[in-house]
């Protein structure tokens, strides 16, 4: 017999399971199935091609992806950890400002960030040319591109993962532990390596895995900078463009296996008992730097870091003021005005991508908002068989590289099926909002899970005890309490959807091309100013949303990454 409680769980679960099956599980399985087809006939041919001698490029790309990711982890850690340590353990003038600036890279959408780097440090970049002219060199002293370009962009965009985990671990660290070590006779060096460092390691491992995954999935940087260099995420795109969907499926499966293996490893690692502080933190305590030499060294370092960190943003701003056709053969742009911004608002075809992006992001966000609440509620507050499975299913889109999600959707919806209501979705407007919905659902579920786990069951019971029915309780008690978490997840999903490039490039049509696609188009037409203006719009949107989240929802920026 089903009692009321179980019936309710079932009613909640049916839509959740249907949607996750139809739009996450089915496309994933469909890709796996497709990878075993060769010209429509079941075979292992694709895998033989991948690993065999015939197509070395694929194996090479996989290998490239792996070592690029390992190096990205290393560089991100080398930048993020010391920066976090200095900005969080020492008190010196401007510390607060520096530590706020340190997370600025996250407001640059990947494509825009790469673009800014290209124009800063690339062949025609402002910095190399400026140095050349200043020192009267005949050649530019350095330029980024290919592997070095990808690595530098990765280090810049991914070090905040290390910075934030280290900073939060440091502020949770009970200083009496270090004091206890000193009291027992350990010198400063010993204290750091024997006490502080071991306590920070769980954070390092988590950040490393995260950077590795993000870097494996990275698409924009190789797309714009790789040249002839091949990485796996890019190979998928090329296979698709060349019409070899079966090979693209095979490549997707292999990239997915690597990513999911890492996700599982990470879950296992985080689920292990870690030594978190039992005592309540006394709050961050920073040692005042009194030695003037040291103090001003730190300030200089801070200023230097801020300049480097903000240069891409500044470049973007400057470039966005360069009107079309005024910067061609010259080393530096000469004309600056607001033409590009003006065109955004008075030229319909320039405005169209912005409108498309906004509309599609709003649709996707409405979806993740509603669906995220119910999914998260079912996962946190209900007990049922297969809960773990559902939990993994929700997180799959988070673990899968965006390129793979795009491929999954292409393979699942380029023929009619019940989940597309018998329509072919590929090539229609709806495929992109659907892709955004799937891709960013985990963001909302995660942030909602966090607040729901904090919500004591007795709150709901109290409402029930006072006579409120389940749905009334849900509306009047649960939702208002969890709203900050849901909203912060949704807002984050919104900004990511506005900046999303990899799935967009696989699935867009002329009718629904979003901002990122138009940036790519404008870059191809060497209309750098307009591309930068689009980029500025994305940056501005992200900045506004982050401000709202931290100001009104009390959400720390670091939460939005984890």
């Amino acid at each position: 017999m089903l009692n009321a409680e179980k019936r309710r769980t079932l009613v909640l679960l049916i839509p959740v399971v249907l949607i996750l099956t139809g739009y996450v599980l089915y496309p994933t399985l469909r890709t796996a199935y497709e990878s075993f087809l060769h010209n429509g006939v079941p075979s292992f041919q694709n895998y033989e091609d991948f690993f065999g001698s015939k197509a070395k490029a694929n194996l090479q790309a996989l290998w490239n992806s792996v070592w690029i990711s390992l190096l990205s982890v290393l560089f991100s850690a080398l930048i993020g950890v010391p920066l976090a340590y200095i900005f969080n353990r020492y008190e010196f003038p401007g510390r607060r400002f520096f530590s706020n600036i340190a997370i600025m890279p996250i407001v640059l959408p990947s494509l825009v960030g790469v673009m800014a780097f290209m124009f800063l440090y690339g062949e025609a970049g402002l910095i190399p040319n400026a140095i050349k002219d200043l020192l009267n060199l005949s050649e530019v002293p350095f330029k980024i591109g290919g592997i070095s370009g990808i690595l530098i962009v990765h280090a810049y965009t991914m070090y905040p993962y290390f910075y934030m985990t280290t900073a939060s671990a440091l502020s949770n660290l009970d200083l009496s532990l270090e004091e206890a070590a000193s009291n027992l006779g350990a010198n400063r060096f010993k204290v750091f390596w024997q006490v502080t460092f071991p306590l920070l390691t769980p954070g390092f491992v988590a950040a490393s895995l995260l950077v590795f995954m993000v870097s494996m999935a990275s698409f924009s940087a190789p797309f714009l900078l790789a040249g002839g260099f091949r990485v796996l995420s890019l190979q998928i795109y090329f296979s698709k463009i060349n019409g070899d969907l079966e090979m693209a499926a095979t490549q997707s499966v292999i990239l997915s296996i690597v990513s999911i293996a890492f996700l599982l490893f990470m879950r296992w690692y985080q689920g292990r008992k870690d030594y978190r502080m039992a005592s309540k933190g006394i709050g961050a305590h920073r040692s005042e730097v009194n030695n003037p030499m040291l103090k001003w060294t730190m300030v200089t370092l801070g200023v230097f870091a801020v300049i480097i960190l903000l240069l891409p943003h500044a470049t973007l701003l400057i470039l966005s003021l360069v009107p079309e056709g005024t910067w061609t053969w010259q080393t530096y742009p000469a004309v600056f005005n607001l033409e590009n911004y003006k065109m955004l608002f008075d030229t319909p075809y320039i405005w169209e991508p912005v409108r498309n992006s906004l509309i599609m992001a709003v649709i996707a966000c409405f979806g993740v908002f509603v669906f995220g609440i119910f999914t998260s509620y079912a996962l946190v507050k209900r007990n049922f068989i297969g809960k773990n499975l559902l939990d993994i299913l929700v997180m799959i889109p988070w673990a899968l590289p965006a390129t793979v999600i795009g491929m999954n959707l292409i393979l699942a919806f380029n023929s009619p099926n019940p989940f597309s209501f018998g329509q072919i979705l590929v090539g229609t407007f709806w495929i992109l909002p659907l892709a955004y919905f799937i891709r960013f659902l985990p963001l909302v579920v995660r942030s909602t899970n966090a607040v729901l786990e904090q919500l004591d069951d007795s709150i709901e019971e109290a409402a029930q005890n006072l006579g409120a029915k389940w749905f009334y309780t849900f509306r009047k008690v649960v939702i208002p309490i969890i709203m900050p978490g849901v909203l912060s997840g949704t807002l984050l999903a919104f900004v990511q959807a506005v900046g999303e490039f990899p799935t967009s490039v696989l699935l867009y049509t002329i009718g629904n091309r979003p901002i990122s696609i138009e940036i790519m188009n404008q870059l191809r037409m060497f209309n750098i100013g307009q591309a930068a203006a689009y980029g500025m719009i994305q940056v501005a949107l992200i900045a506004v949303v982050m401000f709202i989240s931290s100001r009104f929802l009390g959400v720390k920026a670091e939460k939005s990454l984890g």
Partner: protein
Amino acid sequence: MSTVHLSAITKQFGKVTAVEDLDLLIKEGEFFTFLGPSGCGKTTTLRMVAGFYYPTKGVVKFNDRVMTTVPPEKRNTGMVFQNYALFPHMTVFENVAFGLKVRKMSKEETKKRVEDVLRKVRLDQYAERQVSQLSGGQQQRVALARALVIEPDILLLDEPLSNLDARLRDEMRAEILRLQKEYKITTIYVTHDQVEALTMSDRIAVFNSGKCQQVGTPTEIYNEPVNDFVAEFIGETNLLGVSEAGLGENHRLYHVDALGSKVKVNNTSLNVAGYTENDELRLSVRPEAIEVSAQPVAGENVFPGKVKLVQFTGAAVHTYVEMNDRLTLVGTALNQGPSTYLKEGAEVYVRLPEDQIRIVPKAGV
């Protein structure tokens, strides 16, 4: 106002039996306490009354209405949770008004009732505050007001004082009793604190490992425990293993293994609990009943010993007397000044008064 009748209630969670074969009848207007150590099934039982759990077996009745599987929102009970469970996004007024709003009461009536109940819990000044701005004791009173304002048939209190400091606890104890008497509501109070139970309750049910050990008034529970668990859990006591050793005219004889000798116990129901032949027996004697004296004392059940420790607690003095290497007895006397304190190491005589001893069976597991 209503009676609560639990008959043959069993609650299992998977393979674990949380409550086993429980029968209880709680009278109208009674202040009834479930007392027991943590994990004994008292909160589970309370939650079955509230409707958050449905019993695996058995029937829950309010008056004559069968409530066994009625959902919680239709039971009209008012519950105060251990952590208060105040709605963090509402003000004090909104919290208290919640139950009335659900009942679709008019705005004016709601306002009147909420103000009335807030006055009764002395929080009328705080109506517009956010609950997070209140102290623990104030939050407690909001929770109480929220439960009372819906005029529940039964008031359920789940360890409501356990999060308060000692002083506030005394104050709230009086407050809860005052309100309960004022509203004359049938009240079920769950606690693991015996002082709370003894001072507040009309009747107490003592729980241990899913079973109700004894139901009775505070004096019954304290003076006539049915087994060694109740004797030991409520108040302090000295427990000695004994076996039957004969029957006199007005008394019985028991052999105390640890003393290697017999003691005499009055043969009344106050001194000897019901037991069967198969029961292991224990002798329970409260520290305040034991007489410890430096001079030889006249009467029955006098044994020599040596003072091991004298503990001064202010109002009372505990004297630990080592009878032999297997047995130490504790005697408690009210403080009568320094001249009456015994010296550690002194040879003393201990008397176990035959009218103060209670023979109880060992609790079945």
